[in-house]
């Protein structure tokens, strides 16, 4: 469990990125922080592994106040996946994945075996192990990034817009892959995005942020859709544009789902999976 207790962050230039933030992130679930730029979502994420230290308040992981933990040790116990993969360009895929285990003293053959297993986990062909990051596609690079994040078998995985820079098709593939991985591994995932659809797809708990890290609403995707707290939430989830207000029409004897703008959203079936 990760707990934010009255956390504020003012940057040296005077910007108040996060103002009196309180939140509990339950273990073994995915919490998605979603908001536009300037909402402080990345700052909140980076406070969990002490890449950013709060100017006020405290953050606890289980019962440890993280300000008492040594940053390097803390970071090695937490997986981190970033938007541009952040891979080391001069190291092969396998070496990139094994970076932290090697730093922590795991022997080379063992680290390599584990790296290959992780490539299976994230759906990368083992034949790519000796490639360099520049020889991979954007989607493959992100998979390596996820594998590297999982390499120390962390309880917590921080993901900062990990699928933001890949094309929509690959993004959707990677999202499904993450859902599958999370079903197997049940990590405490903190995921940052500005894409509300991604947030609803991946989040057990979704946190909608306004400017300055102000929480607009916290809840399950269903909660937020069913009871949007205010107009801001309504606008953000797209309910005001009718995108989420679906109705059913009969077309050629089948029930077709149409959204508020009249666009076809899909076909309704009787609940048995197709």
């Amino acid at each position: 469990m990760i707990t934010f207790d009255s956390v504020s962050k003012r940057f040296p230039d005077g910007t108040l990125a996060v103002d009196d933030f309180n939140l509990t992130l339950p273990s073994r679930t995915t919490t998605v922080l979603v908001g536009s730029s300037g909402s402080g979502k990345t700052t909140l994420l980076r406070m969990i592994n002490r890449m950013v230290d709060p100017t006020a308040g405290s953050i606890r992981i289980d019962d440890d106040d993280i300000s008492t933990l040594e940053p390097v040790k803390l970071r090695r116990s937490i997986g981190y996946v970033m938007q541009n993969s952040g891979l080391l360009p001069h190291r092969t895929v396998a070496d990139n994945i094994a970076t932290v285990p090697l730093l922590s003293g795991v022997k080379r053959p063992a680290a390599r075996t584990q790296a290959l297993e992780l490539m299976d986990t994230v759906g990368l062909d083992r034949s790519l192990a000796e490639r360099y990051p520049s020889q991979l596609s954007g989607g493959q690079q992100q998979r390596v990034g996820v594998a590297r994040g999982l390499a120390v078998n962390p309880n917590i995985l921080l993901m900062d817009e990990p699928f933001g820079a890949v094309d929509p098709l690959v993004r959707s593939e990677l999202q499904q892959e993450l859902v599958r991985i999370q079903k197997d591994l049940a990590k405490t995932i903190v995921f940052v995005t500005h894409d509300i659809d991604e947030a609803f797809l991946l989040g057990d708990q979704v946190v909608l942020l306004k400017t300055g890290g102000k929480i607009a609403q916290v809840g399950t995707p269903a909660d937020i859709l069913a009871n949007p707290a205010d107009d801001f939430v309504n606008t953000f989830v797209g309910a005001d544009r009718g995108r989420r207000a679906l109705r059913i029409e009969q077309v050629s004897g089948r029930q077709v789902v149409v959204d508020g703008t009249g666009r076809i959203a899909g076909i309704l079936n009787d609940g048995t999976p197709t």
Partner: protein
Amino acid sequence: MNAIAEAVAWIGDPAHWTGPDGIPTRLAEHLGYTGLTVLIAVLLAVTLGLYIGHTGRFRGISIGATGALRALPTLGLLTYLAIAFGFGIRLALIPTIIVLVVLAIPPLLAGAYSGVESVDPRTVDAARSMGMTEWQILWKVEIPLALPLIIGGIRSAVLQVVATATVAAYISLGGLGRYIIDALPVRDYTKVLVGALLVTLLALALEGILILIQRLTVPAGVRATRSA
């Protein structure tokens, strides 16, 4: 016979390849001054450059200071150091090496800090987020990726030092400059040309070796392209 041919003939004469004033001895002395200078300058300037590149501190001051160093007239500084200190003439090597180190510092410093600065800040951020210590970031990420530019700095420092190390002869030391300094007063222009030719050839040879090293130090993943 024209001057160049005379100089080449001088170099080809076996009599000039032995003894304390022979080409091997002068060449070894010249390389010795260059090697010692570059070693000292690398220890000072590359260390400082890595520090500036990694921390971003003292960047402005260093650029200004090294710019000023470049403006110092080598021969003037050498003469001053040699006579200003008691040991200057007795231990002529000290002022000579100081002058040459001063010359070598700007390119080395620039190569080192611009090399580290050229590393993608997102790569460094990722390395730190994973739990690398600052030393590990420097040794495992920044230096390997900066190496081609660091070697580039060494290349340009070696070139300048090798060419300028002729001044050692000006205050009684050896090296290839000996041929030039000794021959000028007696108007032995063939020998002056010999000195100049040998320095040029040495500089070109070292340049070639360092270009090769520079190519070899480009990290494999950086050289590789997607089509590879």
